[in-house]
């Protein structure tokens, strides 16, 4: 070992060490984000996992330790009671299903709105295309929270929409829009629409014009061309956009909190209440872990589908 160090200059030595650890070139580039995820995602996840199997205490921190040294031996106390509790109380199960429902319906609506927009942008000539793409990204320049608050101003009983309708004489009494599920769907679709449009755009812009021409040339009317050529070729983009809307929407907290009513019980909100109102960290952690599992399964299915579709091309 000593001879090796002598022979190799110091700079090369570190490189050599990294190489022996299996890290060089591409490996090194991947290692950085990998480490980042390890430190800032996996470790906190393990902490949450640990808390989820602890017992709740009125203390600081408000849960019992996992490992206990009683002077003679090390006791590992695993408490799966929290997970059982999730099953027994219908609140949690209902909140899960409702979250998935809201996320799914929102993603479908975002797809129906986003697809024509992405298609139109992708087929626009160059200067206009960049401009339209900018317009899609523009809302990100203001705070997300601010934009959701702005919707409150629109939807309130004495808000912009109701006032306009009343002054035009279309309605007499304001329509209840804020604090309804409608407002939640609206908020989610509005917020996540760019995440639907961007992957769809990226896919559709690559669609070769000559394929559409070939379809028309072979007798395909515009509708047939869309359903037999454009749509199947854009499936990877559809799945990508769908995932980008569906997944974060499941755990959404801010939008149901600010726009939803008291009965809009989405899992993110339940989680918040458990942590900060009830201060039951173990149950809250169990909810978080269960949610992760519930989300990971559909993601894996969609991902493998997407991979298969891209491979086929």
């Amino acid at each position, binding site marked *: 070992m000593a001879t090796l160090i002598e022979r190799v200059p110091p700079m090369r030595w570190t490189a050599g060490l990294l190489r022996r650890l299996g890290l060089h070139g591409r490996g090194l580039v991947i290692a950085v984000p990998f480490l980042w995820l390890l430190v800032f995602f996996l470790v906190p996840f393990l902490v949450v996992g640990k808390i989820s199997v602890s017992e709740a205490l009125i203390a600081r921190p408000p849960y019992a330790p996992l490992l206990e040294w009683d002077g003679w031996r090390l006791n590992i106390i695993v408490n799966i009671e929290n997970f059982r509790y999730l099953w027994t109380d219908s609140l949690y199960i209902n909140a899960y299903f409702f979250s998935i429902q809201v996320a799914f319906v929102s993603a479908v609506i975002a797809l129906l709105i986003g697809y024509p927009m992405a298609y139109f942008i992708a087929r626009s000539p160059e200067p206009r295309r960049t401009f339209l793409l900018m317009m899609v990204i523009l809302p990100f320049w203001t705070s997300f929270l601010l934009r959701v608050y702005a919707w409150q101003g629109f939807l309130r009983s004495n808000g912009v929409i109701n006032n306009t309708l009343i002054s035009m004489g279309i309605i007499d009494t304001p329509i209840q829009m804020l604090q309804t599920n409608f407002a939640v769907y609206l908020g989610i679709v509005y917020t996540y629409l760019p995440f639907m449009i961007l992957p769809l755009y990226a896919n559709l812009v690559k669609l070769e014009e*000559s*394929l559409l021409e*070939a379809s*028309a040339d072979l*007798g395909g009317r515009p509708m047939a061309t869309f359903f037999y*050529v454009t749509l199947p070729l854009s499936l990877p983009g559809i799945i990508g956009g769908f995932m980008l809307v569906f997944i974060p929407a499941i755990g959404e907290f801010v939008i149901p909190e600010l726009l939803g009513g008291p009965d809009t019980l989405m899992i993110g909100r339940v989680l918040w209440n458990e942590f900060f109102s009830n201060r039951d960290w173990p149950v809250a952690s169990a909810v978080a872990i269960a949610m992760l599992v519930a989300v990971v399964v559909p993601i894996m299915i969609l991902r493998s589908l997407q991979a298969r579709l891209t491979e*086929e091309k």
Partner: protein
Amino acid sequence: MIQNAHAASSRPWVAETEPPFLRIQKVTKKFGDFTAVDEVSLDIYRGELFCLLGGSGCGKSTLLRMLAGFEAPSEGRIEIDGQDMAGIPPYERPTNMMFQSYALFPHMTVERNIAYGLLREGVKRDEAMSRVADILKLVQMTQFARRKPHQLSGGQRQRVALARALVKRPKVLLLDEPLGALDKKLREETQFELLKIQETLGITFIVVTHDQEEAMTLSTRIGVMDEGQIVQVGEPAEIYEHPSSRFVADFVGSVNLFEGRISVDEKDRLEIDSAEMGGTIHVGHSTSCTLDQKVWYALRPEKVRLDREEPVGEANRARGMVEEVLYLGGQSIYKIKLDSGKSVKATKPNLLRHEDDAISWDEPAWISWGDTAGVVLTR
């Protein structure tokens, strides 16, 4: 005048025995200020294999795309089988196109790619599949029916693209540089197959190409394009032996051009004084020109005789120095620098496997040619 084996009945453009099948009348296409196709008029007859030949960017694809309906003419009229095509979308036209890039649907198998056009037309599934099987046999692709385009070689893809356009039996088949992506050998094989298929099915083909050899091999007639205009239309031999302008002479094959002035203009005989060549040129035919007019004499390299000894007579000959000899296997190309300073190309077939006494570089030599070897061009 034209040496061609075709009988007059198979050459309706000569005898006008039938009306044209496809008429292009003064068609112009403008993109903004730029004129891509400029007042093109063309008549094409049933069962022809017509080649559009021209350099890159001269408007061949644009003209073809107007026939297919992807592009609307800015001016002029297109008629197929007596029907005006104005306002008729691609999916209602009796044409099919084979794209330069093939444009095969990547998510469909070979079979489904070919069946696509039939199914859109409303052909029953069983019938469509049997027609697909037939056409696959014709292009010898039966064993690849279940593959996706990305699992095929370039040549195989090209056959699929051809089959897909053929299966609908269009009245006119448009082919945009169909053999562009193939290597020379495969290209030649495919050219013959294309000819065979065209003869079997009797469909009218319009082929775009910038390869003059391909145009010569394939076509009944060639239309040479330059800067959006058709500059000459004719049978391959006519285009080669009787080019109408310097551009055509130079574009189709290789040519020597001597600038000069008409010094004698008789009924069926011309004489040209050419300083560029360094002597007098006798021509055994007449052209519409006037005395002292500036003309060019176009002489193909294979029509130039090359000798060590001085040829008899005082016209159609010049002395020079062999500068370069290029051995091409079947023939050799000689580059001769004339005493006048002009460089001339001459080709000679290599009749013997080894010629001890062959003319080689840095040797003085004489070039000469007959009265009917070349053409007089006024443009």
